[in-house]
């Protein structure tokens, strides 16, 4: 598995790599049409028990439709949807062991925090004492005890978010669906809440399926991410694999910052490839993950800016993996600085440098001539 290259990521939970593991949720060739518009296009996907699974993509890519099909608000036009091996396509939402946290939170404005949390439990005709105990536990878990009697409009955005969460987990659903759960929170609160969500998922041992358009959020919380585009899955993998080994330029560009260099394959060696582009002064040597690549193919090399080394001194070997240019722009972000370097062929390449010392004066300034180098294994060769 390629993920080894990405360093010491502690992960023991990888049921998707285990052929004997049974999927918890299965989409089998699911298509959803709204009139002429195809929201989900012949999609198949397995999600495993206790997984924290993210659906990531731009708006209109079909991720919310997928979630709403799981909840039962939309029925697939074609295909099957299985939960623990049972086809649930025809089961109405109120009979599904699945709960959803809505993007708008959808808190009942005429009920108190307690009333909202107890709502789902009352539908199951749970004894009053049990409901009270469960509501109290949820309030404690989400730190909402002081607000139990308040109405939703008397709460802050963060508190409302927690009520919505408490309400959706109160019934201990087999699957919790979260539709942009943190979208309405400000950045700082969002980051805190991300970790709270992860802890909660661990503690309760539930399966979470989350829809988000925020790639950082997806990277932080998920076991696996599904990147979607136009109703199709583009890549399904762990956050590290998605970042370090994107399957296409679309994924590479959607997650994080990336430089692309295009060219033609000039030679294929054992596990490596040489790429040439007439407008570049050097040739490009890189590892090859696509075994089918042949000499003469059009390919792209995707390199993350932090893997580009920037230097004022000319390196010893300028024939491979080394380009020079002029500093065009500098973005100072505090922790890191991003250098935009304009190459001789007019392309702009980005390099990120960690600001390890408190600089008064930058060692590299505007219009300096700089050299950019990168190791053979820094980039990914993409054919699409």
């Amino acid at each position, binding site marked *: 598995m390629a993920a080894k290259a990405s360093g010491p990521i502690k992960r023991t939970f990888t049921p998707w790599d285990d052929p004997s593991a049974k999927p918890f949720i299965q989409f089998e060739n699911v298509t959803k049409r709204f009139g002429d518009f195809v929201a989900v296009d012949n999609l198949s996907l397995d999600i495993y028990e206790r997984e924290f699974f993210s659906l990531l993509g731009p708006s209109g890519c079909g991720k919310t439709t997928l979630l709403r099909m799981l*909840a*039962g*608000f939309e029925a697939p036009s074609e295909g099957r949807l299985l939960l623990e091996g049972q086809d649930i396509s025809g089961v*109405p*939402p*109120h*009979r*599904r062991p*699945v*709960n*959803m946290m*809505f*993007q*708008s939170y*959808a*808190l*009942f*404005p*005429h009920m108190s925090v307690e009333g909202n949390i107890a*709502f*789902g439990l009352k*539908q*199951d005709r749970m004894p009053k004492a049990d409901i009270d105990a469960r509501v109290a536990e949820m309030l404690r878990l989400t730190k909402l005890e002081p607000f139990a009697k308040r109405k939703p409009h008397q709460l802050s955005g963060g508190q409302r978010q927690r009520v919505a969460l408490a*309400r*959706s987990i109160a*019934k201990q659903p087999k699957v919790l669906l979260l539709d942009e759960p943190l979208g309405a929170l400000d950045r700082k609160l969002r980051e805190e809440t991300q970790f709270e969500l992860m802890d909660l998922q661990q503690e309760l041992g539930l399966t979470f399926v989350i829809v988000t358009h925020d790639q950082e959020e997806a990277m932080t919380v998920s076991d696996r991410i599904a990147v979607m585009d136009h109703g199709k899955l583009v890549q399904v993998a762990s956050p590290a694999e998605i970042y370090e080994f994107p399957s296409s330029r679309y994924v590479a560009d959607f997650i994080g910052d990336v430089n692309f260099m295009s060219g033609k394959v000039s030679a294929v060696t054992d596990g490596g490839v040489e790429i040439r582009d007439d407008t570049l002064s050097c040739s490009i040597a890189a590892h090859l993950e696509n075994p089918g690549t042949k000499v003469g193919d059009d390919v792209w090399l995707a390199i993350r800016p932090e893997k580009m080394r920037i230097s004022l001194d000319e390196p010893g070997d300028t024939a491979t993996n080394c380009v020079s240019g002029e500093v065009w722009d500098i973005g100072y972000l505090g922790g890191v600085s991003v250098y935009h370097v304009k190459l001789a062929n007019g392309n702009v390449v980005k390099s990120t440098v960690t600001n390890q010392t408190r600089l008064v004066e930058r060692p590299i300034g505007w219009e300096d001539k700089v050299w950019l180098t990168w190791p053979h294994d820094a980039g990914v060769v993409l054919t699409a």
Partner: protein
Amino acid sequence: MTAPNAKPLIKSKFFVVFVPYLWLFLFFLAPFLIVLKISLSQTAIAMPPYLPTFDFSEGIGAAFSELKELSLDNYAFLFSDSLYIKSYLSSLQIALISTALLLAIGYPIAYGMARSPKAWRPTLVMLVILPFWTSFLIRVYAWIGILSREGLLNTFLVWTGLIDTPLTILSTNIAVYIGIVYSYLPFMVLPLYAALEKMDESLLEAASDLGCPPLKTFWVVTFPLSLPGVVAGCFLVFIPAVGEFVIPDLLGGSSTLMIGKTLWAEFFSNRDWPLASSVAVILLMILVIPIVFFQNAQQRQQERDS
């Protein structure tokens, strides 16, 4: 803001507040005080047909001495004659039953409209408002031709063979109920529709997601959330219905007692202006609680919207 701009702003603000205030004070509030005063006066065969008239040309003193002529006689008369008490009670009863009927008929219509495809809704709303723009009198008149003994409804029912002899509907309280329900339906449907339409559909989905079946969702989520619309609609039809004149006059019979009709007869037929005034004062006193309640609800609604 710079100082030269501030001054005319304050002036124009004052003007904007003052003019409508003064107008409403003169032509809405002051007349009630006059009604109150005349309700305490005596009937006279003169023009104007009441005493005293407070002729200030004879000096303040003379006007002041006339003050002693005011009395509660008219009110005493109102309560001694069962006609008036019966009129008030029957008005309240008719308005109450009509309001209940309107709610029962209007709610499904408003609900259906709010659940209709988004593209249709403006058209449906316009179709509800349109009859309201056409003359009230004409709409009541239309029912005379339908409900009369030789009218279209009886002709139709006899033709279908459902009945042998024509029904007497016109000139009964049933005709009054039909008339009120028909004329006031837009006033009930529109606030209900407004409340139902702006309800977030994800609330219904959330209820369903948490295991609540559809019919129960209606009673625990939809209906409680539409209550502001229910309240607004009920007040909007109940209060004017109590004082309704045209409908009981044209569609009701001689046995239909409604206070608007009684007041009109007192004023135009008997020309007893003081008695008509005291009828109006009592009617207002009956309605003042619901009116204040309605006004508060309106104000709260406005504050919530802003």
